[in-house]
């Protein structure tokens, strides 16, 4: 039974509100709790940005140097060049291919759950997706090392080419010298981002009003025509949001990727070659470098780049959805 404090003393007599009632203490408390997130973000941004800029401020490295493709950070063998291009390019390459692999699959799965699946199938696949989300990244990396990498190197060791009868060879690629490669990294990442893209796309498809579907059916279209011409365009901003979120997750993944991509600091020329990413290099070098030395400052600059990518993606998502709400 709720205690009505204001009228406790005497019925009909209004008493002065207590201190906590005057300032509405509960509201202040929960505001502080919610506002703590702002404090956290500000703190995070400040520290990481400050540390990331040390490479330029304290060590005097120019911004053009970090765009070079030479990475020679060891001060025992000058000249020292902190070129971050191999890492930035590596992150972009691995993420792009992962998205190419997983987006069709994820959108298809979201459509399956939303339009095609009967209830019994939904009740199996949806928990399965949630379990997918929960599998930790080290486990994916371990699976990659123990299963995927040996599989790739033993199944495709020789030169890979696709040739058609008249045209000849349309596609050629050196084989997997080792299984540690761009493709291995992208495959591992694609299973990791699949549940993210699927669930956000699913929400987007669910949000489309049923009237659109029924109107389309009343016109005599098949289900696939409805999906292709009505639902996908209507949910496009949601699907784009999903892809951007998946991209952020893929770009930020550290441990699983580092275990399978081979980490050689050069730009790869084919899917079968090893490469490196921002996150994997940070994992490799952070423990061996000393706080304050230029080498570690370069690693902090890499984390700053990662932070910038993630904040940019948040802004991008907002832009995508603002246009939808405005239109």
């Amino acid at each position, binding site marked *: 039974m709720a205690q009505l404090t204001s009228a406790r003393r005497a019925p009909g007599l209004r008493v002065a509100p207590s201190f906590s009632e005057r300032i509405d203490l509960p509201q202040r408390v929960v505001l502080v709790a919610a506002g703590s997130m702002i404090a956290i973000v500000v*703190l995070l941004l*400040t*520290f990481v940005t*400050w540390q990331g800029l*040390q490479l330029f401020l*304290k060590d005097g490295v120019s911004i053009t140097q970090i765009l070079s493709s030479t990475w020679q*950070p*060891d*001060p*025992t*063998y000058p000249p020292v060049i902190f070129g971050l291009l191999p890492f930035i390019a590596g992150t972009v390459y691995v993420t792009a291919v992962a998205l190419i692999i997983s987006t069709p699959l994820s959108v298809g799965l979201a459509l399956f759950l939303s339009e095609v699946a009967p209830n019994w199938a939904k009740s199996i696949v949806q928990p399965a997706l949630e379990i997918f989300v929960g599998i930790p990244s080290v486990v994916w990396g371990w699976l990659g*090392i123990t299963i995927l*990498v*040996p599989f790739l*190197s033993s199944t495709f*060791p020789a030169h890979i080419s696709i040739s058609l009868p008249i045209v000849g060879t349309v596609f050629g690629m*050196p084989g997997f*010298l*080792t*299984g*540690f490669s761009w493709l291995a990294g992208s495959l591992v990442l694609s299973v990791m981002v699949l549940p993210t893209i699927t669930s956000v796309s699913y929400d987007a498809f669910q949000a489309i009003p049923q009237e659109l579907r029924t109107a389309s059916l009343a016109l005599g279209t098949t289900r696939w025509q409805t999906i292709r011409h009505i639902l996908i365009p209507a949910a496009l901003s949601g699907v784009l949001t999903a892809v951007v979120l998946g991209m952020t997750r893929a770009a930020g993944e550290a441990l699983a990727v*580092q*275990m399978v991509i*081979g*980490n*050689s*600091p*050069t730009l*790869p*020329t*084919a899917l079968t*070659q*090893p490469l*490196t990413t921002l996150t994997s290099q940070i*994992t*490799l*070098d*952070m*423990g*061996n*470098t*000393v*706080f*304050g*030395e*230029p*080498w*570690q400052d370069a690693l902090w600059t890499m984390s700053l780049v990662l932070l910038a990518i993630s904040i940019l993606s948040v802004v991008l998502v907002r832009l995508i959805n603002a246009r939808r709400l405005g239109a």
Partner: protein
Amino acid sequence: MLNGIRRIGAVGVAAALVASACSSSAATPSPVPVTSAPTVMASAVVTPPPATPTPVPTLSCQSGNITAAGSTALQPLVQAAATAYQNQCSGATIVVNGGGSGTGLSQVAAGSVQIGDSDVTAESKLATADAAKLVDHIVAKQGWIVVTNLDVTGVKNLTTQQNIDIWTGKDTNWNQVGGPDLPIVLIFRPSSSGTRSTFKKIVLGGATEATGGQTLTEDSNGAVTTAVTKTNGAVSVIGFAYYNDPANKPLLNGLQLDGIDATVSNMAGGTYKLAADGHMYTNGQPSGLTAAFLAYMLGPNVQGTLIPSLSYAPVVK
């Protein structure tokens, strides 16, 4: 100025979270205030203070809590010694952590831990001012061996020159050094790793290593071992303990260096040259439990029995 703001921010957070007990339970208080960002690194021209393994009573039990952090190559040895010490001295607590040589040096210089384990000297990593505060205790000698995948048959020895040719990318196929027709896949350690810099200095003489599609970089001994065993034509450098491990030895082809076998006795005797000292640094001269534990590390229990069983070489006869 922003540095000062960061300090104020850190102090503010500390005041809000009453958790200064983290470091206050340590036996030896840190005498070093946190300095502002260190100046440009000096190269290793400063002569280090001499290591001081003077013979002392080997087991004096002290009580208290200390933490050692740093090199993962030394971690098995330090952990085994710590366990043995704690078994005999019940009032002592020694926590051993990994994190890498760089982490160990940073944290001991900053006073977050009492002992920093490192595969490289402090002078080569820290600023001169910070390195000068640290006292070096060399506790063991560790060796590395060049290994290949088992499919590289017929290659049992590599000379220094052959190593240079292979690792700089001049030779790209095993048949150029007497092996089968198999591309050479180089597996490096991270360039910041003590192992890699030791190998580069001692065997390669500072030559520029190869980069590109036939090279991989793997994190640490275990990951390297896995990669070598799974990759055809792979070659890499791993620590003795990992080579002698019964799970790994049958899967690896260990090579001689310049005709010398990679054994602990050859390393201790100086004929096998791919070796380096294992350092345990303290901030200033150690006292209390830290000193007692370091004395234990240099005593016969550790040097005579534990160290050889883990494939290191002792430094105190």
